[in-house]
C-alpha cells in the first residue's frame, strides 16, 4: 500500500499542515484502518511536540531593543544627512584633526591681529562676523541651524559671558557634517565649530582637562589655540576666541550649557 510505504513523508507533511485537503482526508481515513501507521503518526506527533518545546528560546532583552533603536536612529541620521549634503559648501582635506585645525587657521587668519580686549577688538569682532562667509546671520540663526544641521541640535549657550549667536555657516570637516557658529560679546568674538560623528580621540591632541567625567583638550594650531570637546553622542566641538587667553577661553567654554545640564 502506497500510503504505508510513504508514511514518513505523509506523517511529517500532515503534522506540518502541508498536505492538500484531499491528501489529508485520504490519510485520516487510512489511519482509522492501519494501526501501524497510526502508531507511527502518534510517535511522530509526540516527538514533534517535544522538539518544539525544547526549541523555545528566551525573549530579546531590553538592552537589545535599545541597541536596535539606536542603530535605526543612526541610520535615519545618515539618510537625513545625505539629503542635507547639498548644503555643505566645501570639504577640507586631511585628517579630522588637521582639517579642523586648518579651518580654524583659515578663519582666524581673516581677521586683523588684536591681542587686547577692548573697543578695537570689539569692532574687529563685529567686522569679522560681517565679513565671514556666513550662510545666515541674526535672529534666525538658531532655527536655521536646527533646520539645516540637525533638527534636535541646540547651539551651546555661554552663560554669564555676554556671548550671543550671530551667525552660522554649514561646512564639512573630513567628510563629517559640520556647522560653524559665530558668537559675539561686547569685547570679543568666539567661534564654535561643531562636527558630527567624530571619534572620541579625533579631537584629542594636546593637553587634557578633566571636568567631572568629561574630557576637554587644548589644541594648538600654529599660534592659535582651540579647546575641543567630544560629547557622548560623538558630536565634536571646537571653540576658539583669538582675543582671549587659553584660561579665559577655557572658563567660558566650561560655563557653557554643554557642561551644565545636557
Amino acid at each position, binding site marked *: 500500500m502506497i500510503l504505508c510505504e510513504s508514511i*514518513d513523508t505523509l506523517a511529517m507533511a500532515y503534522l506540518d499542515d502541508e498536505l492538500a485537503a484531499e491528501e489529508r482526508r485520504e490519510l485520516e481515513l487510512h489511519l482509522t484502518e492501519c494501526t501501524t501507521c497510526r502508531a507511527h503518526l502518534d510517535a511522530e506527533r509526540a516527538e514533534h511536540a517535544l522538539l518544539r518545546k*525544547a526549541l523555545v528560546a*528566551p525573549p530579546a532583552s531590553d538592552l537589545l531593543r535599545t541597541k536596535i533603536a539606536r*542603530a*535605526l536612529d543612526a541610520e535615519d541620521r545618515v539618510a537625513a544627512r545625505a539629503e542635507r549634503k547639498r548644503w555643505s559648501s566645501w570639504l577640507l582635506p586631511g585628517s579630522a584633526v588637521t582639517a579642523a585645525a586648518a579651518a580654524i587657521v583659515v578663519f582666524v587668519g581673516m581677521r586683523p591681529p588684536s591681542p587686547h580686549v577692548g573697543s578695537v577688538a570689539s569692532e574687529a569682532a563685529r567686522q569679522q562676523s560681517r565679513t565671514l562667509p556666513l550662510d545666515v546671520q541674526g535672529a534666525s540663526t538658531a532655527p536655521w541651524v536646527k533646520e539645516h544641521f540637525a533638527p534636535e541640535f541646540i547651539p551651546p549657550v555661554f552663560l554669564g559671558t555676554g556671548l550671543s549667536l550671530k551667525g552660522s555657516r554649514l561646512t564639512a570637516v573630513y567628510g563629517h557634517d559640520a556647522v560653524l557658529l559665530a558668537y559675539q560679546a561686547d569685547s570679543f568674538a568666539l567661534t564654535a565649530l561643531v562636527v558630527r560623528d567624530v571619534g572620541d580621540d579625533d579631537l584629542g591632541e594636546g593637553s587634557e582637562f578633566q571636568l567631572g567625567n568629561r574630557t576637554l583638550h587644548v589644541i594648538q594650531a600654529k599660534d592659535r589655540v582651540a579647546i575641543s570637546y567630544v560629547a557622548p*553622542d560623538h558630536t565634536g566641538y571646537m571653540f576658539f576666541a583669538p582675543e582671549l587667553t587659553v584660561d579665559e577661553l577655557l572658563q567660558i567654554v566650561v560655563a557653557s550649557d554643554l557642561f551644565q545640564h545636557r
Partner: protein
Amino acid sequence: MLAVRPNQPKRTAFERQALVHTDALFGAAYRLTRNARDAEDLVQDALLRAYRFWDSFQQDSNCKAWLLRIVTNTFINEYQRKKRSREVLDAASAEQDATDGVLVHAEANDKRSPEKVLMHHSVSDDVQRALESLPDDFRTAVILCDMQGLSYKEIADIMECPVGTVMSRLFRGRKLLASALREFAVAEGYVKPSTPTTPPADGDKPIDLETYRAAKARESKS
C-alpha cells in the same frame, strides 16, 4: 543632544511590521548561533540591513519570513566569518592567560560553585549542545519550521533549495536533534535509556511529497 528626527513614515512602518518580530528573530538567532551575545549581534545586524532595504520589501508578503531570510543570510555570510576570526582571538588570549598565570581547570572551577554547575547544565543548555551536533542546513530548516512555523515553501525560498530538499533536511534534522536530546537526557539521568519512540525510517526512502504524489498519480493511472 543630537537626537534624531526619525525618517517618520518609514520608521513607523518598520516598527509596526518588523520590530514586532524582534523576539522571534532573537529566538532563531539564539538557536542558530547558540549563544546570546552572538544572537544579539546577529539580530541587530539583520534588522539594520532590513531597515536599509525596507523599500524592497513586498508589502503583501510575509514580513517575518522576509526578516528570517535576512537573519539566515546574515548568519551564513557575515557572522560565521566574524566568528572564525574571533575564535582565533579567543584562542590567542586564552593562550596568553594560560602562560600568564595559573591555569584554572574547568572542572576545578565547577567544584567551587555547585549553583553554577546546575545553572550551566540546564536542559536548555542541552538543546544548544544538541543543535551543535547538527549540520548547519539541517539546523536552519528545523529552526525555521519548528520554532518559526514557516511553510516548506517559505523555507525553500529562504534556503534557496527545492521543497523536497527542505523536507529531507527537516526530517533528518529532527531525527538527529531528537536523538541528541535523548542522549543528553540519558547521560545526565533525566530519563532512563530506552529505545527511540520512533523506529528509524528506512534511510534510503526519499522524504518528499512530490515523489509520493508522482507515485500516486502513476498508481491511479494503472
